[in-house]
């Protein structure tokens, strides 16, 4: 366990080092921060002064080391587009994305897992086939188009829900939450559903496939032979073994939901990290792109580590091959 943890931490350090190096080289080789900050009509003297002030005249290695130091202390520089510290902007936007991603994932798990279990246990029923067909629809529907459809139905035609924004938010110790007002919840509903539809389809197809695999194994047959009730076989034996891979996927999917949030946030003008990232990419705001890259990578790596540790908690057999990671 300790060896595994050390191995993983080393791997994380390597990944983060590579990501920071990529971010740094974006900074260094893409665009010109001097022009971005001073404007195109600045004089050479002004640029030279700013270059010295920003430390861009130092050797590249020194710059890189000081960049790593800055990143570790949460200093990502100034956004070219907004002219504000990147770290502060990211921190301000994070709650919106977090609430969106977690509520979307919650909806997906609540519907996806039971639907998958049902489709596996009763795989020959008509209702299971309908569920499977619907899930194929779910993965084929691009999430941005899902958002457009929802807006068209519920905002334009029925006029039930707002088509953009977060509604009213409440500030709790710097964390702006939309979960405490009715307005905020109404605004959250469609974006969260947009995220959830693809995930429901993914999770249920996965749960079904895993569960069918488990139901085929010998110990399930043996459990049946022992005369255990169908309920006990399905839920106490099969489901428990199905959940191990499902936990991984849900964990990994949480990462991809944060990525998908980019799209959903664009459709609903949701003021989170994703929308910020897209606006930064469109404006070639390199400092913001680099910071987003590092923050998202750190988040993913962290989520993956948690998932790996959960593995140990759920399935004690895994410790046998702990060295492999």
């Amino acid at each position, binding site marked *: 366990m300790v060896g595994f943890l050390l191995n993983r931490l080393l791997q994380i350090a390597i990944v983060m080092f590579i990501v920071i190096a990529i971010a740094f080289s974006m900074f260094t080789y*893409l665009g010109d921060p001097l022009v971005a900050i001073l404007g195109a009509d600045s004089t050479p003297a002004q640029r030279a002064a700013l270059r010295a002030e920003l430390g861009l005249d130092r050797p590249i290695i020194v710059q890189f080391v000081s960049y790593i130091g800055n990143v570790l202390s949460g200093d990502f520089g100034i956004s070219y587009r907004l002219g504000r510290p990147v770290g502060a902007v990211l921190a301000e936007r994070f709650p919106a994305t977090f609430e969106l991603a977690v509520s979307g994932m919650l909806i997906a798990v609540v519907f996806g897992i039971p639907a998958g279990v049902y489709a596996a246990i009763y795989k020959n029923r008509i209702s299971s086939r309908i569920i499977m067909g619907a899930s194929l629809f779910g993965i084929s529907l*691009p999430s941005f188009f899902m958002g457009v459809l929802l807006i068209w139905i519920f905002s334009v035609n029925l006029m039930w829900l707002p088509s953009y924004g977060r509604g009213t938010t409440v500030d709790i110790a710097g964390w702006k939450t939309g979960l405490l007002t009715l307005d905020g919840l109404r605004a959250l509903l469609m974006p969260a559903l947009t995220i959830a539809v693809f995930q429901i389809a993914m999770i249920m197809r996965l749960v079904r496939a895993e569960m069918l695999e488990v139901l085929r194994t010998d110990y399930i047959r043996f459990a049946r032979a022992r005369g255990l009730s169908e309920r006990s076989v399905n839920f106490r034996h099969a489901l428990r073994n199905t959940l191990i891979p499902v936990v991984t996927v849900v964990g990994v999917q949480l990462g991809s939901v944060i990525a998908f949030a980019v799209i959903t946030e664009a459709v609903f003008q949701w003021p989170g990290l994703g929308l910020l990232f897209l606006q930064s*990419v*469109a404006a070639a705001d390199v400092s913001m792109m680099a910071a987003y890259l590092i923050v998202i990578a750190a988040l993913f790596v962290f989520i993956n580590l948690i998932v790996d540790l959960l593995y140990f908690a759920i399935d004690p057999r895994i410790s046998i091959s702990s060295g492999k990671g």
Partner: protein
Amino acid sequence: MSETDKTSSNPNVPSASVWAKLRAAVYKYDLLYEFSRSPSAIVASFLMLLFALAAAFPDLVAPYPVFDLAALRLEDAFLPPAWLPEGDYRYPLGTDDQGRDMISAIIYGLRVSLFVGLGGVALAICIGVSVGLIAGYVGGITDSILMRVADIQLTFPAILIAVMIDGVSRAAFGASAHEEIAAFVLIVAIGLSGWVQYARAVRGATMVERRQDYVAAARLIGVRTGTILFSHIMPNVMTSVLVIGTIHLAIAVILEATLSFVGLGIPPTEPSLGTLIRIGNSYLLSGEWWIAIMPGAALLILVLSINLLGDFLRDALNPRLK
């Protein structure tokens, strides 16, 4: 299925071409029989054929040359689909903000979407199959490094990698130059974000193949390693690539549409399906719904039929389900 065909494409003959191998797989897994028993696969491939023809010959299929500026009819703008009261029978699915026929716009958009999707998949296959063959055949430290890179990349969703590549190229080439090469940037973005699945599958299959006698024989008579990899082993590991490729095409088309929708992909001068939906989205709130919904429906049907075909191939080519 004639007897002569069956022997000439015997799956046990190792160094036949990729094409012959795929034909052999058709017989080995009784693909034609399975196909005839699967209504969804038949409908899906019929639709795919339709889409492919429309995309290949848009000038013949599309009723109007919509992206010819001389043919613009601004007085016909915002006409709803023909079955609505204000609709016009000349434009069955209505017209957009500049009086362009929606059907024609969708057909031309389909062409761009499929071109980018297929290009991206082809690039991903080239990278993924090469990496997989090399990693699986050489093994050792090369294998560990390549697969670790693949693992790391797999942690990041394709969409983020693609957006990042787009952003980097935008910063590197400038916004106006970027518009001209947008399709190729997208192909690169899709290719670089999607190769890992192929590499993993091919690596696994190669590790099995490299222990076969025919590989040992080829080495013994001094065939070059490159030739062994690409003409002897590769044809034998392509069945899984076919399955992954079909499913990846659906993902690639969605990826292209998504990037174009958020304004990072194909510019509106020669729109793809995603760009069309983006254009239509700005009229959604004012009630001209068909400008966004029609291209969206086309996109949905396209992706759905690719996915249906992919599901069919996966089940039909999976020996464990037999």
